[in-house]
C-alpha cells in the first residue's frame, strides 16, 4: 500500500517534468488553430511549422555553429585545464599558492563585473561577429583546472616518476600517461563544458549580430522574441523543439554520464 502510493507520486512527478515537452512537440506538429485545444497528440500532424522555421532562419547553420563552437571550447578547456591541473598537482614551481588563489578568484568573480569590458575588448580586437569572440574568452576556465587537479592527485606518483626517468617530457607525460588514465575526469569536464557553452545565450547575443554566425540557442531566442515568427505559436514551438532535440537525443543515450558529470560539478563548489 505504502509502495503504490510512492509509485503514484513518482509517476505524477515524472508527468510534471516530462509532459510539457510532449505538449511542445505535439503543438509544434499541429496547425495554429488546433493548439488551444491540444491535450496530448496532434489531431492532424504536419511538419508545416518546421518548414516555416527553416525558411525563415538558418537553423541548420546555427546548429553547426553551436557544435563547432562548443566542440572547440571543450577541446581547449580539456587541453589547457589538464595542463594547469597537472602543473598544480605534480610539478614544482614558484607561485603555486598565488595561482591557486587566482583560480579560485576567477571562479567566484561574478560575470556581471566583466561583461561590459569584455565586450569592449571584443570590439577593440575586431572580434565582434567572429567565432573568435565566442570561443577565446571561454577557452580556459577554473573549474576544469580544479577538477583535473583533484583527479590527477589520485594518480600514483610512481607512474609519473617512472616516465620521467625514462626521459619523457612533462607534456608527453600529461598526454600519454595521465589522459588515458583520467577518462572519467575528461568525460566529466567535457560534458560540463560542452553543455554550458551550448546553453550560453547572453554572450552570443552581445557579440554576434550576424545571423549566419549565431549559435542555435541565440538564434532561436531572437526568433522567439522578434517578429519573424509572425506571431505563430506553432512555429515558435517548432523552433524550440528543434533546439531541444539534439540535447534530448544525446541525453537519451548518455543519461548516466550527463547526470554524473553535472552532479559532481556541483559537489566541487
Amino acid at each position, binding site marked *: 500500500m505504502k509502495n503504490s502510493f510512492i509509485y503514484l507520486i513518482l509517476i505524477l512527478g515524472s508527468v510534471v517534468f516530462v509532459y510539457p515537452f510532449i505538449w511542445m512537440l505535439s503543438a509544434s506538429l499541429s496547425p495554429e*488553430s488546433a*493548439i*488551444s485545444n491540444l491535450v496530448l497528440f496532434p489531431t492532424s500532424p504536419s511538419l508545416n511549422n518546421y518548414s516555416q522555421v527553416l525558411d525563415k532562419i538558418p537553423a541548420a547553420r546555427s546548429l553547426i555553429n553551436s557544435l563547432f563552437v562548443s566542440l572547440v571550447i571543450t577541446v581547449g578547456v580539456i587541453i589547457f585545464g589538464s595542463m594547469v591541473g597537472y602543473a598544480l598537482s605534480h610539478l614544482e614551481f614558484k607561485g603555486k599558492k598565488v595561482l591557486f588563489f587566482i583560480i579560485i578568484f576567477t571562479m567566484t568573480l561574478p560575470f556581471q563585473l566583466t561583461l561590459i569590458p569584455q565586450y569592449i575588448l571584443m570590439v577593440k580586437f575586431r572580434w565582434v*561577429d567572429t567565432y573568435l569572440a565566442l570561443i577565446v574568452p571561454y577557452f580556459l576556465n577554473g573549474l576544469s583546472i580544479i577538477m583535473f587537479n583533484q583527479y590527477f592527485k589520485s594518480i600514483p606518483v610512481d607512474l609519473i616518476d617512472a616516465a620521467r626517468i625514462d626521459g619523457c617530457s612533462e607534456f608527453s607525460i600529461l598526454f600519454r600517461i595521465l589522459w588515458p588514465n583520467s577518462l572519467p575526469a575528461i568525460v566529466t569536464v567535457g560534458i560540463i563544458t560542452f553543455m554550458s557553452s551550448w546553453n550560453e545565450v547572453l554572450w552570443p547575443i552581445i557579440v554576434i549580430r550576424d545571423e549566419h554566425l549565431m549559435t542555435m540557442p541565440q538564434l532561436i531566442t531572437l526568433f522567439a522574441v*522578434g517578429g519573424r515568427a509572425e506571431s505563430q505559436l506553432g512555429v515558435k514551438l517548432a523552433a524550440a523543439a528543434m533546439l531541444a532535440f539534439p540535447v534530448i537525443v544525446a541525453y537519451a543515450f548518455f543519461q548516466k554520464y550527463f547526470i554524473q558529470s553535472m552532479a559532481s560539478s556541483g559537489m566541487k563548489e
Partner: protein
Amino acid sequence: MKIYPLIVLTVVSCCLLSCSDQSKNDRKHIIYWASNNTDEITFAGKIVDQWNNGNTGSKVTFQPVPEGQSSEEVILAAVVGNTTPDIYSNMWQGDAELYARAGKLVPLDTLPGFMKFISARCDSNVIKEVTSIDGHIYQIPWKINPIMLICNDNMFKSIGWQTPPKTYSEFLKAAAEIKHTAYLNGYLNKWIGYSEVIETWWQRLFDFYPLYLAASGGASLIKDNKVVFNNEYAIGTFQFMKTLYDNGYFPRERLSARQDAFLSSDIAIRFTGPWEIVHADKFKPPGFEYSFSPLPVPDNHKNAAYTYGDTKNIIMFTTCKNKLAAWEFIKSIISEKGDYQLLKITNQLPRRKDLTSNPLFINYLNDNPKMRPFAEQSKYVRGPDICPVLKEIFDAISREYEACVIYGKKTPQQAVNDAAKSAEIILLQ
C-alpha cells in the same frame, strides 16, 4: 609536444573561419545594406542589378542587414565595430542624430545637386523634419508606413456599425458593444483591439505616439532639446488608452504569444501599417473582410488625423570612399522609377509629395485599392523628432504609460508629468 601544433591549428582555423568575406573596400565598390524584409531584399536586388548593368563605374553589392532583435541594434553594433556599409536604407529617423553627432554620417546637403533633388521630391515640412540640429541634413526621407487602424468589417457590421469609429467616444461605445457580445464560456474572448503590453520603448511608436500625433495635429514631443509633450494631447491619449484597459476593452495579456488574434476575429482592430495587407491576405480565413481607417481622435478634434509614419531614411556613412558615386546610386533608388518599384514590390509608400497626383502612382493605387487609405494618409504623417536621446525619452514615457494606462497606478496627468520630468533629466546629460 604533438599538442602544440594542434593548438596552433585550432587557433588558426578559428581565425580563418572567422574571416567573413571582408568587404572589398576599394574605391570602385559600394556596399549597400538593405533591410532583411523579404520584399525589400527583392527590391534591393532589382535596383542594384539595374544600376550595375547600366553603370560601368562603381559597382554596388548589397546585403540584407543581419538579423538581430532590431535592425537599429545591428547598425549600432556595426558602427561600433567599424563594419559599416557605405549606404544604409533602413535607418530609423530617430537614430540618425546620434550617429550624425558622432561624425559617422555624411552631411548630404553638401553634395552637389542634393538640395535641388530633394526639394523636388519632398515638401518643405518633410525636409525640415529631417534637418539636424546643426542645420545639416544627414538623412534622406525614403519610405513611410503610416500607422492606421485595420478593421474587421464583419465584426463591426455584426454590432451594427457600417463604418469604423472615428472619435474617442465612438470608439469606446463600439468597444462596449463588442465586450457585451463577447462573454462566452465565462471568459472574455473578444475585444475591440489589442496593443502589445510590453514596456519596451519602441512599442509606444505603435500605440501612444500615433494617437498623440493624431490628437495634436502632428506636434513634437521634443523640440530644440526641450520637452514639449507635457500637454493636453498626451494626457488625453493616456486617458483614452487607460479607459480601454480599465474597462477590459483591450486585454492586458500578451496575445502575441499565441495565434494571430485579428485574423481569428478575437479583436476588431489593430494599430498597424500597410505591411499587414500581405500578411492578412495570406492567412485570413474565408469570408474575412477588412479595411483601413484613420486613428481615433478626441471628440472635439478638427482637421485631419495625423499619424506616425515609421519613417525610414537613407544615410551614407563617412566610411564611404566614393561619396559622389554613392549619391548617384541613391538617386536611382529614390527616382520616380525607383519609388514606383518600391511601391510595387514591397507595398511600402515612398515619401514623395506627388504620391496621389502622379499618374504612375495613381495607376498603382487603382490596382491596389487597399493601399489607397495609406496614400491619402501620407500627407498627414510625422516621423520621430530629431533628438539624440530620443530612445531613452521614449523609454521613460513607456514606463509611465505602463504604470498609468495598463496598471492604473497613476492618473494620466501624473504619468505625463513624471515622464516629462524624467525626460528633462535625460536631456540634461
